[in-house]
C-alpha cells in the first residue's frame, strides 16, 4: 500500500535524480571540450546545451554574465531556476524528505549529504565562483555525479521492490528518455554549435558502448537509431520504455489508476520496436517532436495516476445565515 501523494513524491524524486545526473554529465563533457577550443566557439556550444536542456528562457531571465564559465555556473550552481544541478538535487532531497519514513535511511542520508555539499558551493556566490576559473562549479559537478551514482546504488541495492520503487524507477526512466530525445534534437542541422555524434553519445553516457558498434565518427542517423532503438543499452529510449512498462505492471493492485499510462507506454514501445525507424528518421524533426510529446504525455499519465485519487481542488466553506437566506464566507 502506498499513499498517492507518496507515490507522486517518489516519481518526482526519480525524475529529478535523473535530471541532476544528466545535467552534471553534460556539463562535465562540455567542460572538457571547452578546454580544447576557442572561447567564442565554446560559448556557442554551451548556449546550445542550455537550449537542448530547455532552459533558454531561464538563461535570459538569469542575465548570465559573459565570463567563459558563466554558462557552466548557470547550469550547475544557479538555484534561481529549477533546471540547474543544485536545484535538481534540492528537489530530490525535498521529495525524499516527504517520504523519508518509508525509504531506506541511507537513501535519505545520501540525498541530504549531497544537498548540503551542493548548497555550500552555491553559497560561495556566482562572482566568487567565476573568479576561481570555474573550479568551484567543476568540483560541484564531480560531487554531483558521484552523489547521483551513489544514490542510484542505494536505490537499486536497498529499496524494496514495492510500489514506491516502481514509481521512482519509472520517474528516472521517463526523465532519461525525455532528455535523450531533447539532446538528439541538438545534433540536427548545420552550424558550428551543432553537437556531433560523439558528443551526443557522451552526453547520454553511451560513448564507449557505441564505439564498438558505430566506430569512431558516427553520423547523427546512426546515433539516433542507437539511442532510440538499442535493445541492450539502458540509455536507449526503447530499453527505458520496456522497463517503464514492467514497473507499471508491478502496480497490479493499482491497475485501474495506471491503465492509461500502461497503454501509452506499450504503444510507444511498439512504435520504436516495430516501426520503420529508418523511414521515420527521414524526417527527423517531426519524429523527434512526436517522440518528445508522446513521452511528455506518458510522464503526465503516470503523474496523474498518483494524484487522481488525492485532493486536487480546493476546499471552500459554505454557510447559511439566519434571516438572510444566503451563505457567506467567514
Amino acid at each position, binding site marked *: *500500500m502506498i499513499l498517492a501523494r507518496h*507515490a507522486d513524491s517518489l516519481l518526482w524524486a526519480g525524475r529529478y535524480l535523473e535530471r541532476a545526473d544528466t545535467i552534471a554529465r553534460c556539463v562535465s563533457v562540455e567542460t572538457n571540450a571547452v578546454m580544447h577550443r576557442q572561447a567564442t566557439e565554446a560559448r556557442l556550444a554551451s548556449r546550445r546545451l542550455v537550449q537542448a536542456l530547455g532552459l533558454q528562457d531561464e538563461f535570459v531571465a538569469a542575465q548570465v554574465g559573459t565570463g567563459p564559465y558563466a554558462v557552466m555556473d548557470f547550469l550547475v550552481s544557479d538555484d534561481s531556476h529549477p533546471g540547474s544541478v543544485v536545484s535538481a538535487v534540492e528537489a530530490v532531497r525535498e521529495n525524499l524528505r516527504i517520504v*523519508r*519514513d518509508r525509504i531506506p535511511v541511507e537513501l535519505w542520508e545520501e540525498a541530504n549529504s549531497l544537498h548540503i555539499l551542493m548548497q555550500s558551493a552555491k553559497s560561495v556566490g556566482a562572482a566568487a565562483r567565476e573568479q576561481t576559473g570555474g573550479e568551484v562549479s567543476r568540483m560541484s559537478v564531480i560531487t554531483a555525479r558521484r552523489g547521483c551514482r551513489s544514490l542510484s546504488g542505494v536505490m537499486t541495492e536497498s529499496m524494496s521492490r514495492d*510500489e514506491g520503487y516502481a514509481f521512482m524507477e519509472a520517474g528516472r526512466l521517463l526523465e532519461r528518455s525525455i532528455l535523450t530525445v531533447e539532446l538528439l534534437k541538438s545534433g540536427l542541422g548545420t552550424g558550428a554549435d551543432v553537437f556531433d555524434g560523439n558528443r551526443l553519445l557522451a552526453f547520454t553516457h553511451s560513448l564507449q558502448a557505441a564505439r564498438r558498434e558505430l566506430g569512431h565518427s558516427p553520423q547523427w542517423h546512426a546515433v539516433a537509431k542507437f539511442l532510440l532503438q538499442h535493445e541492450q543499452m539502458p540509455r536507449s529510449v526503447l530499453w527505458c520504455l520496456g522497463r517503464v512498462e514492467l514497473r507499471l505492471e508491478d502496480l497490479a493492485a*493499482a491497475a485501474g*489508476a495506471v491503465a492509461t499510462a500502461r497503454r501509452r507506454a506499450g504503444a510507444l514501445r511498439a512504435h520504436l520496436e516495430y516501426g520503420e525507424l529508418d523511414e521515420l528518421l527521414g524526417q527527423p524533426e517531426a519524429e523527434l517532436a512526436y517522440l518528445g510529446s508522446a513521452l511528455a504525455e506518458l510522464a503526465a499519465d503516470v503523474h496523474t495516476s498518483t494524484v487522481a485519487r*488525492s*485532493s486536487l481542488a480546493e476546499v471552500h466553506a459554505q454557510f447559511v445565515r439566519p434571516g438572510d437566506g444566503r451563505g457567506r464566507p*467567514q
Partner: protein
Amino acid sequence: MAELQRSDADQLAYDEAFDRDGNVRPLYAAIVERFSNFDAAELRRREGIIEEEFRRQGITFTVYGDSQGTERTWPMDLFPRLIAATEWQEIERGLSQRVTALNRFLADIYTGEGAAMADGVVPAWLVQSSDGFERNAFGVSVPHDAHCVIAGIDLVRDAEGQYRVLEDNLRNPSGISYVIENRAAMTRAFPRVWEDHTVEPVGQYGRMLRTALESVAPTGAGDKPLIVILTPGIYNSAYFEHAFLAREMGVELVEGPDLVVDEHVVYLRTIEGLVPVDVIYRRIDDTFLDPVSFRPDSTLGVPGLLGAMRAGTVTVCNAVGNGVADDKAIHPYVTDLIRYYLGEEPILPNVETYVMWEPDQREAAFERLDELVIKPVGESGGYGIVIGRNATDEELANARAEIEADPRNWVVQEVVELSTLASMCDDVLEPRHLDLRPFVITGERTQVFPGGLTRVAMRKGSLIVNSSQGGGSKDTWVLAPQGETQAAT
C-alpha cells in the same frame, strides 16, 4: 586534562553532579572521571562528530524567523545527565499517577458528568473559560479513557533537589525522537562510556507507542488496526519527529488531504483506492482538525473528521480538547485532582503556584510579589513572564494592576532555581541550568518511557531551555538497578 568546573559555591541551585562542598556525587563519579581524561580539543573533536552526524542525517528542527523558517541542526551537549534507578522509580510512579488523574479529569469533563466540577475540586467556570476547553469534543469518547496517549511532563529540581512539576503538555508534546537520536549520537561519540554503566535502553519507543495506539483503536477495527500519523507537513518545526515516528512505528505519515471521510468513516487515499483508517495520531492543533467544525480556513485538516469521531469509527490521539487540562490556570489544581480521582497523595509536587482569582492567595502573593514569578496563563515559550526579584517597582505595580484587571489570566509561582549540570561551553565544562521532560504513554495502561528529554540553557545563568531560543539537550541515562551499584563503586 579538562577541569570540570564545580558548581559555584554561592549558587542557590542544586547541582546534579557535585554537592555543595564541591565533591562529586557518587552517581556521577565514573562519568566525571572519564570526562576529566579528555582535553578541550578532544571534547571539541567529539562534539564535531555529533554535529556532523546530525547534519548528515538531517536531524533538524525549524526556527521561525522569516515566513518559512530555517532548518537547524539539533543541538546536543556532550555531558550526559544521569538518573539513579531508585530516583527514577519514584519519578515513574509520580508521573504515572499524575497522567492517570489527568486522563480521568478529561474523561470527566468531556464524556462524564463533570463530577470534579460539581464537587468543587476545580471551579466549573475556570474550565469553561479555558482556551483549551473544546466544546466540539463533547460526547467523543476514547477507548480506555486514554484522552492523552502521549504526555510530556516538564519537571524541574528545586534547590533541595526535589523534582517538581512545572508544566503538563497534553496536546502535542514533542521531543521523543531527539531522546532516541541523542542516545545514538552519544554512542557514536563516546563508544566506551558504556563500560562503566548499565543504562536503560531507549530504542523500544516505537513499539511502545504503536501498542498504545493499537489499544485505543475503535471496536470493530480488527486485529491489525490501521494507524497513521497526521503531520501538518514539511514546514512544521517538528516534521523530522513526525517522519521519525512513522518509521519507528512502521505506519504511514499522512497529511490532511491524504485522508477523506465517506459516510462517517475515514479513509486513506492510496494508489489502489481508499483504505479505512482506525487510529490517527495527529500532530496538528485542535482547531485545524476539521474545517467543517473548527476553523473553516484550515488547509491541514480532514473535512468530516469530527463526525467520524462522533460516530466512533476512528480514534484521534491525543484527543480533542486536552488543552483544558494543561492550562496553566488548571495546573495548581492537579494535585487535588489526584487526591480526588485516585484517593492518593500526589507523589510529585507541583511548583508552588498561587491563583489570582482566590482573594486570599492573591493578597498573600501581592505582599511578596518581588520574590515570586508572575506568569500570564495564555502565553507559552516564556513570553510575558515577570520575575519579581529582577523587576523594577514600576514593573511590579503594572503586573499587579494587570492581575487585578483580569485575575483569570495570571498565576504566580515560587521561584524555582533549576538544577545545574556540567555542560560544554566554549572549551570548558561549566554548570548550566536544565529541566527534564519525560514522556508518558497511555493505552490500556499508563507507562513511563525511561529517561526523557533533558533540555539545558546554554547561556550562563539563563533559565530558558527552549531549543528555539538557543537551548541545548543532553542524553539522559536512567541507570539500571545493577548499573547504579557499578557506577557508585
